[in-house]
């Protein structure tokens, strides 16, 4: 089915960004418009999801150039679910930003760039063309460079250099891989590539090209051994920006990996083994890294790396059950990681530090807020029946079924370490009494209490909203699992996707 509707999540973000640029220094107007537009886009996201769920894959040939020659936009359930979860995060972060981002940053274009970034994300999820995917990736990373350096503090610059260097490298590798792919097949349309790659005799070359893509996306989604830039750069920008990065930027790499390795490069045993080993290494190193960090946000950054391992594990196991688990984990992770960084932002505002030994007494001072935060942390750890628990069942099941015990051990270790570090953080930051100040240190004035009630609400509401979504993912796990299984089934049988893009004849000719 063809419909122009699928371009709306992108266009609305772009239109909002343009309007916000006209209102460059008028930050009050910017805040209101940004939140309203995010609400509208969330509604569009819900409608798009319902439409793909009911009627199947929607396509649009941009410029009316027929596939595989033009750029095709494709919304299957996977894409539209990603757009939906992205829009939920976008709304939460945009509400949080109205108070959580300082005025100087807003005056230098925080909100327009925010919308350009989300335009890029939605574009990456909806495109059906490899080169177009590259362009959306570029839009995302260029916007993220601006967000990362906005404010121009010295530590920000330091981390931005690492971030820019690694992401540029990833883009170059990605682009090289596209060039090779085009040389091999003469096509850039994903559905067309899916047919053409399967026909190539020289499987060695195909595998190498696949691995080049894996390295490109791997740097962006922070898998072992390419993740070192992430923990050393995600702790410097303000929490709202870190929330976008932590919740979504690594996940778009994961999305691309799932798309490529289920549609274009169907993994053989060599590649699945490689994925499994990389998943094991990512899980273990990420977990170990999170143990030693005393800065809360650095610890969360390592947890991002660690949990990326669960998703790669799904690709490594490569069965329908495992993919469904990994997808479920992906959806859960988008919401919970975004929320985690928003929570860390509130803690920073209250205490003025992220250093866990210096924190303390949060539970005594803010019991209700702490309770909300506790639910977020428990969802992350995956205490049943909260959201992190359900996908792991699937992954373990697939692991036992395939006899991949190394991966199971790694996943168990990663889960326990997550539990351990979160418990440690909870006792340090929430339960213990705050340590006495050094005599020469100036007392920090609680930046949260002094806020007006409405501002407080704007900071807490997004956390509560995302927490509710997390709770829904946990308690309504059945529904999310149905969606994940549906997507996993679509991944194992790509013919509906190819038919939707290229027409019914495409598969019969072969």
């Amino acid at each position, binding site marked *: 089915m063809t419909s122009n509707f699928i371009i709306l999540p992108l266009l609305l973000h772009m239109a909002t960004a*343009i309007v916000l*640029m006209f209102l460059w220094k008028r930050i009050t107007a910017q805040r209101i418009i940004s939140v309203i537009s995010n609400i509208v886009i969330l509604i569009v996201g819900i409608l798009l999801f319902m439409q793909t769920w009911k009627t199947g894959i929607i396509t649009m040939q941009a410029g009316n150039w027929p596939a595989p020659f033009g750029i095709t936009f494709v919304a299957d359930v996977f894409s539209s679910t990603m757009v939906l979860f992205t829009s939920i995060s976008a709304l939460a972060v945009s509400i949080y930003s109205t108070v959580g981002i300082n005025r100087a940053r807003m005056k230098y274009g925080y909100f327009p760039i925010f919308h350009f970034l989300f335009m890029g994300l939605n574009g990456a999820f909806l495109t059906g063309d490899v080169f177009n995917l590259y362009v959306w990736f570029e839009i995302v990373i260029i916007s993220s460079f601006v967000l990362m350096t906005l404010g121009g503090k010295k530590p920000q610059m330091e981390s931005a250099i690492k971030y820019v260097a690694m992401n540029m490298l990833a883009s170059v590798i990605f682009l090289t891989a596209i060039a090779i792919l085009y040389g091999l097949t003469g096509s850039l349309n994903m559905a067309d590539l899916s047919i053409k790659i399967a026909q190539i005799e020289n499987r060695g070359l195909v595998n190498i090209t696949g691995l080049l893509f894996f390295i490109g996306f791997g740097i962006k989604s922070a898998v072992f051994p390419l993740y070192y830039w992430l923990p050393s750069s995600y702790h410097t920008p303000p929490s709202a920006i870190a929330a976008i990065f932590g919740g979504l930027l690594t996940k778009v790499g994961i999305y691309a990996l799932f798309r490529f390795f289920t549609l274009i490069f169907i993994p053989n045993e060599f590649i699945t083994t490689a994925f499994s080993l990389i998943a094991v290494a990512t899980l273990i190193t990420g977990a170990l890294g999170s143990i030693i960090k005393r800065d809360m946000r650095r610890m969360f950054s390592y947890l991002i790396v660690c949990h990326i391992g669960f998703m790669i594990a799904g690709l490594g196991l490569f069965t329908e059950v495992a993919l469904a688990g990994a997808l479920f984990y992906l959806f859960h992770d988008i919401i919970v990681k975004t929320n985690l960084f928003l929570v860390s932002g509130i803690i920073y505002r209250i205490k003025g530090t992220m250093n866990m030994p210096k924190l303390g007494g949060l539970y005594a001072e803010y019991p209700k807020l702490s309770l909300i935060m506790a639910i977020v942390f428990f969802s992350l750890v995956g205490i049943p029946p909260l959201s992190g628990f359900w996908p792991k069942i699937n992954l373990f099941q697939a692991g036992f079924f395939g006899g991949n015990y190394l991966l199971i051990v790694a996943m168990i270790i990663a889960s326990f370490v997550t539990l351990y570090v979160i418990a440690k953080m909870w006792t340090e930051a929430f339960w213990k009494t705050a340590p006495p100040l050094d005599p020469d240190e100036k007392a920090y004035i609680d930046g949260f209490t002094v806020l007006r009630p409405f501002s407080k609400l704007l900071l807490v509401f997004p956390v509560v909203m995302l927490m509710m979504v997390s709770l829904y993912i946990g308690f309504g796990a059945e529904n999310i699992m149905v969606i994940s299984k549906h997507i996993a089934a679509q991944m194992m049988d790509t013919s509906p996707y190819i038919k939707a893009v290229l027409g019914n004849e495409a598969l019969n000719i072969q």
Partner: protein
Amino acid sequence: MKIILLKTAANYLLPLLLLFSVFILLRGHYEPGGGFVGGLIASIAFILHSLANGLDSTKALLKYSPFYFIPFGLSIAILSGLAPLFVGEPFMTVLWFENPLPVIGLIGSALFFDIGVYLVVIGVTLTILFTISESV
């Protein structure tokens, strides 16, 4: 700087370069040219003017801050992409006018996209260069 040669030349070059940039812009559909190159040439015209006459006089000449060229150009580009939706075609489909215009020739909605690009390029280049020369 008080170089009379440059000043005189710049005053004549400004309209010439602008005209040339429009020519390049219009030429762009089937032949080399287009909004991006045209925009660069137009910004060269303004930069040359600012080198000869000083930044303030160029700003006075432009009337609006070059920054606002960016959202303006973007909106023209996005509208040219949206136009086909009203006749039921997919996003970004080129709609052609039925009769060719005198001098310019046959034009379509792609031209408006190029005009958008042209304005964005002028806006971005001038914003960057003005900011740099202000901070020096």
